[in-house]
Structure formats: structure tokens, C-alpha cells
């Protein structure tokens, strides 16, 4: 019953202009009127982002993750508790020195193009990923420590590492680690772009890709390998599912409320009342994994080379007030570099940064920023306390530009810091980093294992170490965390890393934990998020009630 609510709909156009109080339901499984799961039917899902590639090996957009698992599967996956569990594998053993991973593989699995899945397939996939010019990023980061891949027997494959690296498990559970048919690897017309000729083992087969418009998937009737967190077995419920690309949120919401699509993802705070106020629709949201969103402070140049100024900046913002103003209560506050949904999250940081303006001002006075100019900004020796934040237009989402303006106003008023915000093109953005002409870097990463995010963001040699921090203790901790296979020990190490980065070194102002939203007709059942990743799950468990 996708019946629309005409009176509400006309409002959709004006939504960006209206300030509405928001309410929303949280939790992973929403109540529905869809009844018992049933087989058959077709759904259309309007998504925000058109994937730049359909080859899982080349995956780079968290927003495209829900598409990957429709036609591809990995050796491992995450369960609801954030543990790595077998999927196409039967299990894995790690040698005591942490250098050898022996992985057992399930029997009798076929790719949708008829190819058989076995140890040689796994080796072919990993070898392909390490080929030069195929995916330089994966071979340089996730597979950096992978030395050799050995086929022990058709059902067993052995990975030998050069140094202990538990993140290899995260890789094997990631879209880039998904298994592609060896025939596709050899013969696909545009392998890196993917498409209908790149086959996997998933519950759906990609039937058509109309660039700029939609992706159509048809059920794989022979499917037998659902992940452990799935709610049923055998082939998918739905006969077909279509993903339509609608970039504008108001258009997505309108398409949903008028019944032209049954599901949408990406519902901004301003549009959420249209969903929650409509009894025919349900809104669900979940926090993403990885690192939380906030501001990294460049320690390599003034004024943030002085830790007191960094600490002052952390305390100068009443984060709760800012989030309330921008997201009307729909955002979850972050306290750490790590998202609160991660297993590695250090709860002790909560309540730590309290927006203590008096302390912020004291610190700035101590640091010598005592004078004020005509506009009320602090100065030292005639120089204004200006810090620059550059936002790359293509990566802008969640109204982060508006959030930046709110923070800008807050720090100006509370402490007289001049936060200079600019939205720029990608080229200028990269240029600013190359020239070290920035003080603030905003970022969040949607990695399933926050350890991977932190390696990139906080290690001296990290590829996005925009704070330019060079701290031996932090590096030691990050390296220990990457080698630690005991979960408790690993969590303890990452707790220390978070304390070090946020409190002791004051590198990061945490703002909010990125989340994904799904709005769906109540006739749709099985709407869930992918465990750990916290992004919308694939279509395997979805069904259409009568």
C-alpha cells in the first residue's frame, strides 16, 4: 500500500527552506505492516549516489556499499557484535607468529556465470588485486603486508604475511576482498568499471545498468550462501530490485511519498518529519562504523603548533548546541576519533570536552593571543588568530558546510577565533594540502575496522595524516594495534590511541557520528543495516508484503 499523502507532498519543495522540529525512530529493525516474509515481487529503491564502479575490487564509496553485496560476497564478514565471522570461508586459523592465515573454503559454490569457487579463485582474485595498475590503493594499503597466496588444496588457501597484520581480516570482509568470477577477471570488457559481465556469487545478478538512471538486479535462483547475520536462507525474497539514482533529497522523499519508489536512503534532518509524520512510511537510521566526523588540527604550522591553541579550539565549541541548531536533534554527538558504534570506541572520552569557554579563553591568553582587533578576533603581534578550513565540494555531505558556519559563529563568539571556511574544487583542495596552506581538515571515514582509519589519519606515515603529527608514542600504539590479534588487548591499545589523540595531543575536535537513514513504505519488510558497517544492507532480506 504505497498510497501517498497528497497534502504533505507539496511541502517537499519547500522543505529545504523550512525549519522543522524533527523526531525519528532509531534502531536497526523497524516495525512494519509487511507481515510474514514472502517470495516474489519487485521493489524500487531510490539511492543518492551512482557508483563510479560496479567492480567490488575497485569499491571506494561507502554510499555504494549496499549495491556490492547484492551480487558479490567475501570470504569473511562481520556479525552483529562486530566480530569477524566466516562467509564464503568455513573458518580461518592464524599461526602463533601472526604471519600465516589458513582459510578453509565452502564447497559447491558457483558464480552466477557458472564458474566454480575454490582456492584457485581466491588466489586469482588476490593476485589480480596486486597487479600493478589494477588497484594501487588496495595493494599499497590493505595488502601491503601480504607476501604470498598459496593454494593448499581446492578447499584451502594460505595467506603468508611479511609482518603480523590483523587488518587482513578486515580486508577479507570488505567489498574490495569480494570474490569475482575468474572468467570475469579474464574476459570482462571493462573490468575496472564492472558491469553485467562481472559476475559474483551473490543473491542477485546485475541485469542492466543504465548510467545516470538505474541498476536492475534479478534474483539468483541457485543462491545458497547467505551471510550468518541474514534472517533467512535460500534465494532472496524479491524477484527483482531496481536502484534508481536520485541525487536530490527532496526528489527522493517526494518519489517515496507519492509511491513511485518503495525505499529511499539518505534522508536529511529537514526531510525527516515528512517521513515520521506519515503512517504509511517508516524511518530507520544507524550510525556508520569507522571514524567520526570532526576537525583535525594541523600541528605543523601556527597557530595550532601550540597545543594550548588546539586545546582552546576543542573547548571553544558547544558541540551539542551547534548540532541541535544544524541537525535539529537528529545527529549523534561524537567524543572521539572513533565512531561510537565501533567495537574499539573508548567510552571514557564521553563528557570530556564540555565546551569550557573560560578554559579556552585562559589557554589562548596563556598562548599570547591576548589582543583583539576591530572585529573582535584575537590577535598576537598584529596577526589575527585565523584558522582555515577548506571543504571539497564533491565530498560535501550531511550539510557539513552549514555545520562549519555554525562552528565558525560559535568560536568567534566564545573565544574570538577566526575560522575561515571555504568550499573549493577538488584541485584547490589537494593543492592546499600539498602546500600545507590549511589549519583545519574535516573528515570522517566509513571503514569497518576503525583501526584502518586511524592508521591513515594518525600515523606519521599515514596517507591522510593531515594533522602532520609525528608522535612516537602514537605510532608505537598504532603499530601494536595492527599486530594485536587478541580483541581485549586490541581494544585497550585503541583506547590509549584515542586518549592520546583527542586528550593528550588535542589533535581532533569530534563533532558527530555519521549515520545512514532508510525511509521505506511499511509494506516493505526486512529493512536492515549491514552489521558493523552501519550502512544500508543489500536486498537479500527485503520482502514486499501483500
Amino acid at each position: 500500500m504505497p498510497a501517498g499523502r497528497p497534502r504533505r507532498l507539496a511541502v517537499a519543495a519547500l522543505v529545504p527552506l523550512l525549519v522543522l522540529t524533527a523526531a525519528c525512530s532509531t534502531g536497526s529493525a523497524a516495525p512494519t505492516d509487511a507481515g510474514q516474509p514472502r517470495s516474489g515481487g519487485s521493489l524500487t529503491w531510490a539511492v543518492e549516489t551512482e557508483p563510479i564502479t560496479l567492480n567490488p575490487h575497485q569499491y571506494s564509496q561507502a554510499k555504494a556499499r549496499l549495491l556490492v553485496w547484492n551480487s558479490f560476497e567475501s570470504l569473511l564478514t562481520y556479525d552483529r557484535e562486530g566480530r569477524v565471522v566466516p562467509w564464503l570461508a568455513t573458518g580461518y586459523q592464524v599461526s602463533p607468529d601472526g604471519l600465516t592465515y589458513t582459510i578453509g573454503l565452502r564447497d559447491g559454490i558457483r558464480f552466477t556465470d557458472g564458474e566454480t569457487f575454490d582456492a584457485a579463485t581466491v588466489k586469482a582474485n588476490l593476485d589480480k588485486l596486486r597487479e600493478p595498475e589494477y588497484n594501487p590503493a588496495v595493494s599499497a594499503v590493505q595488502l601491503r603486508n601480504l607476501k604470498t597466496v598459496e593454494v593448499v588444496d581446492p578447499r584451502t588457501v594460505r595467506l603468508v604475511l611479511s609482518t603480523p597484520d590483523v587488518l587482513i581480516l578486515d580486508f577479507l570482509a570488505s567489498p574490495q576482498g569480494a570474490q569475482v568470477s575468474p572468467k570475469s577477471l579474464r574476459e570482462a570488457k571493462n573490468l575496472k568499471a564492472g558491469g553485467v559481465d562481472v559476475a559474483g556469487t551473490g543473491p542477485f545478478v546485475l541485469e542492466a545498468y543504465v548510467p545516470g538512471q538505474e541498476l536492475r538486479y534479478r534474483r539468483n535462483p541457485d543462491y545458497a550462501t547467505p551471510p550468518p547475520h541474514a534472517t533467512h536462507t535460500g534465494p532472496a525474497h524479491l524477484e527483482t530490485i531496481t536502484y534508481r539514482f536520485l541525487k536530490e533529497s527532496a526528489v527522493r522523499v517526494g518519489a517515496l511519498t507519492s509511491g513511485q519508489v518503495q525505499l529511499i536512503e539518505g534522508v536529511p534532518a529537514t526531510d525527516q518529519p515528512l517521513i515520521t509524520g506519515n503512517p504509511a512510511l517508516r524511518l530507520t537510521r544507524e550510525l556508520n562504523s569507522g571514524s567520526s566526523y570532526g576537525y583535525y588540527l594541523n600541528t605543523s604550522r601556527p597557530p595550532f603548533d601550540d597545543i594550548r591553541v588546539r586545546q582552546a579550539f576543542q573547548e571553544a565549541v558547544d558541540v551539542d548546541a551547534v548540532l541541535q541548531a544544524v541537525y535539529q536533534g537528529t545527529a549523534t554527538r561524537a567524543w572521539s576519533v572513533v565512531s561510537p558504534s565501533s567495537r574499539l570506541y573508548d567510552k571514557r572520552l564521553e563528557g570530556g570536552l564540555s565546551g569550557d569557554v573560560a578554559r579556552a579563553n585562559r589557554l589562548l591568553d596563556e598562548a599570547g593571543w591576548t589582543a583583539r582587533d576591530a572585529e573582535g578576533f584575537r590577535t598576537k603581534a598584529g596577526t589575527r588568530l585565523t584558522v582555515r578550513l577548506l571543504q571539497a565540494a564533491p565530498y560535501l555531505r550531511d550539510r557539513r558546510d552549514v555545520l562549519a558556519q555554525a562552528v565558525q559563529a560559535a568560536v568567534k563568539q566564545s573565544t574570538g577565533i577566526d575560522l575561515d571556511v571555504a568550499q573549493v574544487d577538488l584541485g584547490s583542495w589537494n593543492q592546499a594540502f600539498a602546500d600545507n596552506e590549511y589549519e583545519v581538515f574535516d573528515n570522517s571515514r566509513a571503514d569497518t575496522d576503525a583501526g584502518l582509519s586511524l592508521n591513515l589519519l594518525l600515523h606519521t606515515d599515514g596517507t591522510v595524516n593531515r594533522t602532520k603529527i609525528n608522535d612516537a608514542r602514537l605510532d608505537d600504539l598504532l603499530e601494536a594495534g595492527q599486530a594485536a590479534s587478541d580483541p581485549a588487548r586490541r581494544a585497550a591499545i585503541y583506547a590509549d590511541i584515542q586518549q592520546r589523540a583527542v586528550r593528550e595531543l588535542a589533535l581532533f575536535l569530534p563533532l558527530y557520528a555519521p549515520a545512514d537513514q532508510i525511509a521505506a513504505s511499511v509494506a516493505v519488510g526486512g529493512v536492515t543495516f549491514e552489521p558493523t558497517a552501519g550502512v544500508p544492507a543489500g536486498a537479500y532480506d527485503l520482502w514486499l508484503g501483500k
Partner: protein
Amino acid sequence: MSGATLRPVLRRVAAGLLVLWIAATAAYLALLAAPGDIVDSIVGEGPDTPEIRAEIMREWGLDRPALVQYLDYLWRLAGGDLGRSYLLQRPVAEVIGEQVGPTFTLAAAAAALGVLLALLAALTTAGPRRPWLRRGVSTVELVLVSTPAFLIGIVLLSVLSFRFGLFPVSGDQGLAALVLPAVTLALPIAGLLAQVLRDSLDRALEEPFVLTARARGVVERVVLLRHVLRHALLPVVTLAGWQFSLLIGSTIIVEQVFGRPGLGQVVLNAVTSGDMPVVLAVVTLSAAVYVAVNTLADLAYLLVDPRLRRS
């Protein structure tokens, strides 16, 4: 065809090629001068190490001198090879080829509708016959000309698609899905053309030949359609040609709003992520369209105005 008529044609073709070359070169230089380098755009948000950068340089031949890259680009362009998209990892010809159809369909539909609406609006309101209607229509035209296509699109969608369900919201699903985007694009064009055409008609109505025609007892409708309109059409033809070339740009926004396939999405992604081969190809293609449309407009002069045929 005699040599005398062939020469201007050849001159036009040569001028067209020159425009294409200038457009391609200007786009190339602009992208070269833009901040950040190509490797950055290919790396995007992904990890960035010297090894990754070196590999990308090798893969795309960026380690060669700029002049060599430019000449190589021109040479391949002349041979019809548009290169490969950095972002999409597919041949540019393929990327653009599959998107060109929907965009041209939309642009052509919008242009036809825009011209039709403009003719209708201007012909019914030209001259001093119905001052109240004239004022009303003229105001509407001004509003439409000054409203962003984005807003027109969202309003049309909200009312006609979301509220009354008359048209589908998105996709290239036949004629029904073409209506709203085409109307969205056509309205501002119609507004502008109608303003110009009415002005032009007004002036033509004051010409002596109108008086002569009326004196001969020609009905007012015929005076307008057969005599005045032809006379007033020249500036409109020029403007319409120019507007059609601009349409390709407007489709970017409209395609976004309506989730339609087309060049718009491709261009936007390419520009924001620095996907140089795609940007260059689209600029060259747009220049080609511009040249073609303007040539057609020039030819249309000959149809409209017999005096030009003689000279």
C-alpha cells in the same frame, strides 16, 4: 552545386574546425592551469603514497612532457579517440555515447516546446490589441526567465508528479518521463524568446508594409502570420540558436533533479572530480554542437528572409 556556392560552405567548415580546435585547446589549457594536478584527481579521496602516484603517472602517461601530452591528445582527438575516463575507467567515447541520446532528446524537445510557446505567447499579445493580457503574459515571462531551472523543476515535480501522480519522477521511461524535464527547460527559453519576439513584432507592426497590407484588406491574423512574423523572426532565430547551445548546460541541473540519464551527470562528476578526458570531450562536443546549430541558424536566415538569398 557550383563553385560559387561551395566556397562559402567550405569556409564555414574550416571556421567550424578552427572553433573546435580552439575550444579543445582552451579547455586543455584551462584544466592544466586549474589548481591541483591530475594525479590528485585520480587518487581522489583514496590513500595517497608516492608509489601510488608513480603508478598512476605511468598508467596514464602523465610522466611525459606537457606539450607531448597535448599533441598526443590532439592527434588522438583528430582520429576520433577520446581517451579513457580517469574516474569511470571506461572509454570516454562509450561513456558519452550512451549519454548523448537522452540529452539531445531532452534538449530538442525543450527547444521545440520553447519556440512553440514563445510564438504562441508573442503572437497573441503583440501590438496594442489586448493590453491586459499582454501585461500578464509579459510578467509571467519575466518571472520564468529569472527563476532557476532547479526551482521550476522541483515545483513541477511536487505538483504534477508527487501530488497528482501525472508524470513519473525519474528515468528515461518513454514520453511521460520526458514531459516535465522538457517543460522545465522550455519555460525560461520561451520566456526570453517571447520577450524578444514581441518586441520585434511590435517594431515590424509599425513598418509601412503593414499599413499597405492592411490597406489591401488583409485580415489582421494573416498580416501577423504572413508578413510581420517573417520580418520579426530574424533576431529570434539567432537567439534561439544561441539558447539551444546553452541548453546543453541547463540539462545538467534538470537531469540531476529528475534523475534522468544524460550528459549532465557525466559532466558534473567529471568537472568536480577533475576527470580531464571526459571534460575535454564534452567541451569539444559542445563546441561542435554550437557550430552546427549556428550554421543551421544562418541557413534558417535564408529561409526566413528572401532578401538574403539574393546577396
